[in-house]
């Protein structure tokens, strides 16, 4: 059933005004950007998320969380996207929680996440394009533990995270999914170099260097050489979540744009009367509805644990990125000159879209996944 349940609607009705108010562009994105905040997001808002039970949305009830699923997380993420709210929610409450669930490390980190005191990041990419199987960062056995050497990039929230979940190779060679191990690396680990880079959307993503970073055996999340399982869970959840956030970005950008069409007057009429713009707007509206359906489908399949989930996660991520790209492109274009100013918010949507598009796999990466999973 692809309509929302009453509980889901209630969650949406709670979260929508909350994020619109507390997560508003002026209050969060612009504020942290213009005051030179090094984290790139506000910790007070993260605490508010905790108070509302959102930080532990996917954490099982038995461990103090809400015990909800990808659909619910997606509802929160759509609002985050709609308001361009900088937040560690996607990497922490969604991807990291899914990676950690069922492991001993979960006991260590879930309480902090629930309290809104812990932030986590995922370190996967080693090149400019997402390719998890290509991980080559070496983790060699040393005594009772491991020593890590290599580099990671595009680690969103890598500079502020209390714990970074690092995909490393303990066996096999680059390109193989067997032989990967997921490690929980704590902030300030000796040998860990963190270079924070501000991205086009004002978020902070780190380049990490691992110079003989020594870890105990208990830093392993799950099984040694069996890291692909928790990593896949984290990636699928992260991709579905990013798709939902992208739908939100598209919705926010288009809502702003459609409103502008009804207000801006040129040539003696409202520009929304011009048929060319009406048709483009109508086309965009439909595409956003389709992307939302794809994101919802992916989330539902993840929650019900069906095999088709992986295929639809890639469909959703690819489609949401393409549609969001259209929305922000049309958004800037239809706003005319003011759309190009920093003062106007529409350009901020374009910048956020670009970052989310690349996160956990670009539309091309995921179209390729769809082809592979479909057998061609």
């Amino acid at each position, binding site marked *: 059933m692809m309509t929302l349940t009453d509980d889901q609607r209630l969650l949406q009705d709670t979260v929508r005004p909350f994020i619109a108010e507390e997560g508003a562009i002026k209050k969060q994105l612009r504020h942290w950007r213009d005051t030179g905040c090094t984290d790139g997001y506000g910790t007070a808002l993260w605490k508010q998320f905790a108070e509302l039970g959102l930080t532990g949305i996917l954490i099982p009830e038995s461990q103090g969380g809400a015990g909800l699923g990808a659909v619910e997380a997606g509802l929160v993420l759509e609002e985050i996207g709609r308001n361009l709210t900088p937040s560690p929610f996607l990497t922490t409450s969604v991807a990291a929680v899914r990676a950690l669930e069922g492991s001993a490390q979960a006991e260590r980190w879930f309480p902090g996440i629930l309290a809104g005191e812990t932030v986590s990041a995922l370190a996967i990419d080693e090149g400019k394009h997402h390719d998890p199987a290509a991980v080559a960062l070496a983790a060699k056995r040393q005594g009772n533990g491991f020593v890590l050497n290599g580099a990671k990039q595009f680690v969103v929230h890598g500079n502020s995270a209390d714990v970074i979940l690092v995909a490393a190779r303990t066996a096999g060679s680059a390109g193989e999914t067997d032989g990967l191990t997921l490690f929980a690396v704590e902030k300030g680990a000796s040998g860990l170099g963190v270079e924070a880079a501000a991205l086009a959307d004002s978020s902070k993503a780190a380049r990490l260097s691992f110079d003989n970073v020594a870890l105990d055996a208990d830093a392993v999340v799950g099984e040694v050489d069996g890291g692909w399982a928790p990593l896949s869970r984290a990636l699928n959840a992260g991709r579905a979540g990013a798709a939902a956030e992208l739908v939100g970005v598209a919705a926010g950008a288009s809502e702003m744009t459609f409103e502008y069409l009804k207000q801006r007057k040129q040539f003696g009429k409202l520009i929304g009367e011009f048929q060319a713009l009406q048709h483009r707007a109508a086309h965009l509206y439909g595409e956003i509805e389709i992307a939302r359906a794809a994101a919802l489908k992916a989330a539902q399949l993840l929650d019900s644990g069906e095999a088709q989930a992986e295929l639809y996660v890639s469909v959703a991520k*690819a489609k949401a990125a393409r549609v969001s790209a259209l929305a922000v492109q049309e958004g800037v274009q239809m706003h005319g000159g003011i759309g190009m100013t920093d003062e106007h918010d529409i350009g901020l949507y374009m910048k956020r879209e670009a970052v989310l598009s690349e996160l956990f796999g670009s539309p091309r990466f995921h179209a390729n996944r769809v082809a592979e999973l479909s057998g061609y």
Partner: protein
Amino acid sequence: MADLETFRAESRAWLEANCPAEMRTPMRGEKDLCWGGRRFQFQTEAQKQWLDVMASRGWTVPDWPKEYGGGGLSAPETKILKEEMQALGCRPPLTSFGISMLGPALLKFGTEEQKKHYLTQIARGEIRWCQGYSEPGAGSDLAGLQTKAEDKGDHYLVNGQKVWTSYADQADWIFCLVRTSTESKHGGISFLLFDMESPGVSTSPILLISGTSPFCETFFDDVKVPKEQLVGEENKGWDVAKYLLGHEREMISGMGLGSGIGTGASGVTLGPVVKPDDPLTRAEIAAFDVDALAFAAMSERFIDQLKAGEAHPAMPSMMKYAGTELNKRRNEMVMAAGGSDALEWDSERSKGGKAARDWLRSKGNSIEGGTSEVQLGIVAKHILRLPGA
């Protein structure tokens, strides 16, 4: 609830006993449909038998009132009957524009005599109907139609021409929009029913770029139509037409894809079907498959929203637009992947030029049933509420 369960059990038993085995095999396409009508040639004895036995029970039109030849079933009962028929693989006993289009309009606007007379004929598959709407000068702007119906006292005298009349050359009767007044555009239209055998009626088939089609031009040269055959009030025919179009749209939406065409016959993804063998074609098809799977999710969502009463009334326009454009793209991809093999026009190897003909025919999907441009305008006006739309 116990009553519905009894109904289900009884229906299943009756269907098992009365649906011929031949009528439980999948249809091979439109050619296997039973259209009924005065001149219909049944493919097999079983096809005729199936129509007759279903008609005698009123189950060709299960939810129509019994006094008009229907089964008098409630909505839940009709749903159950459809489910049981589907479970047994029963073919629909009768396909007809009379059932899907004219019937609902008559039920709403017809007089008691008209309902008793025409609906029972439709239900028994005795009369085959065609729809006389579009004209060479009135396509997207249907209300601009000019086929004239002059008041001659006890009858109208009809002169003019219709185009895109599906199966006009095989139909027995026509329901036709005519102009009874030039004083008002929308307020000068009337809805007439008349016999295609009437003196002055002639048809001419339309050959499409894809080959033969069911479409015809239909000509009216001093055709006499008795006044009893007016449906609804004179000059109020546009209301009947609008009702009918809305019903048609709902029906198409109910089929799930908002287009009646679908995003492709065999499954949703195209890649496994055409098996691209070069990276550029593969990339294009993968991008298409992303869109096709996303649209499949939307179709499922749309059906659920319709059932829950949550769908915006103008959503069918969005679905029709998106679905038909996707279908055109699918055909483009098939042609691209097929290379020069796909260009063959009438060999057995090419199944009678199926790829090329389907590709060409699909271009009509974004034109018929309201062009893509019209559908976008509807979304702009009714959903986005853009000014002056």
